[in-house]
């Protein structure tokens, strides 16, 4: 043992090197791995909020607004899913039809739901399957009317004009524990 001091240095070096290596391995990720980083759900929410009215206008021009809104919602849902984001929404559209008011609700909450609609005092209930839409007609509401929307724990009252197509959208984006909510009124 007396003449082996150098070997102790060598053994200590190997031990230190192994400990150092194991420590670093658990702390540092390799730099060579390509990790695509996606935009956060905040940007997606900002994007979707500005794009829903455009989709509605394009659908209105093509006289297939419900079909367009449904398709656009499915498109956003698919794109969000590709980024690991869960997208759920419900949209309400009002249109004047021969002086009456047609109200359509599109449900993309991920489950069937009942929606209660109140147009200036008159209440109607709609059952909407998931990824579906349902409509109801309100007779001769005033030119300016209030629309009450109620489903689950959500309640909303809007003051709208009859002779204009109105769109109201409630949006929710979820990624892990992060949830961003928003709404669109146009």
């Amino acid at each position, binding site marked *: 043992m007396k*003449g082996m*001091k*150098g*070997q102790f*240095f*060598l053994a*200590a*070096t*190997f031990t*230190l*090197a192994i400990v*150092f*290596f194991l420590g*670093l391995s658990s702390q*540092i990720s*390799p*730099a*060579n*791995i*390509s*990790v*695509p*980083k*996606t*935009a*956060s759900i905040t*940007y*997606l929410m*900002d*994007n*979707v909020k500005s*794009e*829903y009215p*455009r*989709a509605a206008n*394009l*659908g209105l*021009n*093509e006289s297939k607004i419900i079909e*367009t809104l449904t*398709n*656009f919602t499915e*498109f*956003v849902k*698919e*794109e969000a899913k590709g*980024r690991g984001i869960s997208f759920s929404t419900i949209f309400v559209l009002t249109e004047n039809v021969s002086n009456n008011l047609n109200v359509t609700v599109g449900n993309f909450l991920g489950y069937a739901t009942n929606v209660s609609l109140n147009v200036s005092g008159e209440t109607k209930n709609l059952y909407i399957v998931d990824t579906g839409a349902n409509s109801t007609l309100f007779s001769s509401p005033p030119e300016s009317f209030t629309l009450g929307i109620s489903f689950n724990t959500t309640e909303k009252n809007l003051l709208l004009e009859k002779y204009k197509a109105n769109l109201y959208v409630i949006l929710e984006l979820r990624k892990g524990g992060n949830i961003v909510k928003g709404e669109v009124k146009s």
Partner: protein
Amino acid sequence: MKRKGFWRTFESVLAVIILVFFVLALGVRYSFLPPQMDLSAVGYEILKDLDNRGELRPYVMNNQTGVLESKISIPGRNHAIQICDFGDACYGTSPAGENVWVSTYIIAGENFYSPREVRLLIW
């Protein structure tokens, strides 16, 4: 003639060399990445700004990725544009680079409804 002092010194130097070799080897394989700015946010703002100036939709609807790429300049970075439709058919090239930031921008259409997703890839 015994040269104990020489061999001990030699072994110590050898130990130091081995230790330095390990540290350098790890340095090549691993690196402490410096904090990077959120390029996905930068990319989104670039696409949004192009859209606000009316310089996004016409090119997206015609799948003109090259024109869009020429309108974007990010100092010190490379970038590419991909345009994907509902069927996930994409135009444009994927970068071969590492640590690629992806910013996306959804559009419903321009003169008619035709949803697309624009991807700005920065690396």
